[in-house]
């Protein structure tokens, strides 16, 4: 429908890519969370969740990011964990 948009949409504006990358990297820079610290958090999370489910440890991803909270204009830092669950353990056990 929008004839011109068809062309501009072909590739994302590189400034938006820059802005997003910058935002992410600054979250790391601003928080004093070192990679070692993130590893420690990861270890503890794995320990806790392993009690309830079998997880794929090689696929775990834990990172700091910025998120927009509802009703809050400025983004807040968030710890995002992506933990693939292979199998839920038997609750009775």
């Amino acid at each position, binding site marked *: 429908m929008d004839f011109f948009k068809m062309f501009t949409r072909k590739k994302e*504006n*590189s400034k938006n890519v820059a*802005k997003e990358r910058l935002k992410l*990297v600054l979250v790391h*820079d*601003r928080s004093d969370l070192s990679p070692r610290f993130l590893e420690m958090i990861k270890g503890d999370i794995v320990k806790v969740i392993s009690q309830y489910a079998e997880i794929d440890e090689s696929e775990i991803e834990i990172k700091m990011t910025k998120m927009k909270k509802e009703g809050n204009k400025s983004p807040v830092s968030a710890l995002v964990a992506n933990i693939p669950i292979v199998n839920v353990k038997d609750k009775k056990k």
Partner: protein
Amino acid sequence: MAKEKMGTAIVITSGKGGVGKTTTSANIGTGLAKLGYSVVVLDADIGLRNLDVVMGLENRIVYDIVDVVEKNCKLKQALIKDKRHEKLYLLPAAQTKDKTAVKPEQMVELVNELKKSHDYIIIDSPAGIEQGFQYSIAGADRGIIVTTPEISAVRDADRVIGILEANELHDPQLIINRIRPDMVKRGDMMNIDDIIDILAIDLIGIVPDDESIVISTNKGEPVVMDEKALAGKAYRNIVRRITGEEVELLNLEENDESKFSKVLKLIFGK
């Protein structure tokens, strides 16, 4: 003897190298002198002296900042008077020493001494956040951070804002240098709002990427003196804002259009 003043010391810093700190320092210093203020531009980049060549004063250096600190000469002897402006002086960096030659407390003393007889002290900070940076911000009352619209420069600017804050240098202001309106228009360069949004500090000015800066640096004449150059106007606006005047932000896009309309006028007559 002139009555004692109480000048303001402003450090020009960036974190990242090559974003235009020295050019900015030379232009702000010269611009303030053009308005009639008494100004010292101080090159704090010991070992990598450059403010002298940007200002065209490299042939006049006898003493430098380390000589002053080590008391090999009097402060007045080391101040080089500008060729063109009556009340503009350069305090050059030492070229053969390293950044351990000046300590923060010595810098504070030096800057306070200069503030007694000048309206503005403009301190050109070295790149990085190590020793040289640390003494260059000591003694400053205000901080101006220079960045370009590049991801690496903005990242370093953010870091420096944090460090200035930690050193009790509050509310630094930002100059965005080397903006290319054509790239901003296409969406291939972060714009002013993008950068301000990310860094969350006050903007004191924008400077377009302008050939006239290279040309003026070649000649050793800060572009702020060039009435025709857009970058010159950008620096003149920044200088006026430093003195507390409210000046509208330079519209880089509009300038493109006015150039275009000039061309139209040339072709079609008035």
